[in-house]
């Protein structure tokens, strides 16, 4: 166990192992995504209330779910990097941000597109939507902070502080946005979520959620490999790798 942690802290080992995981996980993910999308788009019956527009659910919900989970991955990695001074945790944290931001963006855009046919408007200041928007801000804040530092060592530490502060705040943010919404006049529009979902719709949804998790992992690993290369550019093993 301990030696595993030790290895995790070793850039060349991590670089290699990430590469070998990607070599099978990435193709598998892409196939699963394509299958899930075709299944959801063409082979399921439409929702009796929303008609065909509900097919957006197969990307909207997975993106939203994984984007949320991603923040916790990022914050935990940040915490590890600050507390145990593990540089590779820092790399993982940094690499989470663009992936999480992209998924959050997808959730927002697809939700917004979905809103037009169902609610008749592109945007409402609903609690969940608003907190999703704040989540996007948090991700982008981490990216902006990281990019602003020239010294990437310091950048990693600074982002770790930020994401750790974020973990404390994320529950507060979610709770407060929820509260905020229930305090005000509801916008007379509700998520359709409650309706128990038909198994024929559920299975492709589950497949898509799984694929999005796998996709998150793949993108994370790819970004980590890039970041490792960048940070270790002057070490012997990278020189050998590049020179060869």
């Amino acid at each position, binding site marked *: 166990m301990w030696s595993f942690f030790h290895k995790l802290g070793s850039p060349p080992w991590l670089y290699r192992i990430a590469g070998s995981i990607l070599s099978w996980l990435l193709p598998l993910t892409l196939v699963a995504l394509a299958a899930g999308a075709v299944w959801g788009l063409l082979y*399921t019956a439409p929702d009796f209330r929303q008609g*065909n527009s509900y097919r*957006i659910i197969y990307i909207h919900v997975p993106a939203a779910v994984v984007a949320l989970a991603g923040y916790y991955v990022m914050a935990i990695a940040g915490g590890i990097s600050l507390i145990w001074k593990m540089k590779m945790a820092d790399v993982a944290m940094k690499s989470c941000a663009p992936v999480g931001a*992209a998924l959050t963006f997808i959730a927002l*855009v697809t939700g917004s597109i979905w809103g037009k046919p169902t609610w008749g408007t592109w945007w409402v200041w609903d609690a969940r939507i608003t907190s999703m928007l704040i989540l996007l801000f948090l991700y982008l804040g981490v990216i902006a902070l990281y990019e602003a530092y020239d010294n990437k060592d310091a950048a990693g530490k600074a982002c770790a502080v930020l994401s750790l502060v974020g973990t404390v705040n994320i529950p507060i943010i979610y709770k407060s946005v929820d509260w905020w919404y229930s305090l005000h006049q509801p916008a007379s529009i509700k998520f359709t979520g409650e309706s128990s979902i038909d198994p024929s719709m559920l299975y492709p949804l589950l497949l898509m959620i799984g694929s999005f998790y796998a996709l998150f992992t793949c*993108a994370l690993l790819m970004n980590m490999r890039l970041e490792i*290369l960048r940070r270790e*550019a002057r070490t012997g093993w990278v020189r050998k790798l590049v020179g060869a």
Partner: protein
Amino acid sequence: MYFDSFHAALVMDGHGAFVWAAYAITAMVLIILLLTPVLRSRRLRRELAGEIRRREMTQTGREGPHASST
């Protein structure tokens, strides 16, 4: 397949534009997401290789007064 024709699948009873746009945007974002690290690491590798080659070549060339310690 649920739809009768390709055209029906495209229109989706009037919701086609929304659904297809959502999927298209998602696909685009995902492609960018997966492609950027690949492209960037390729560029980085090229730059590093170039730097190593340059260093080997300019070992004898003009050197800044302070670069001598490397």
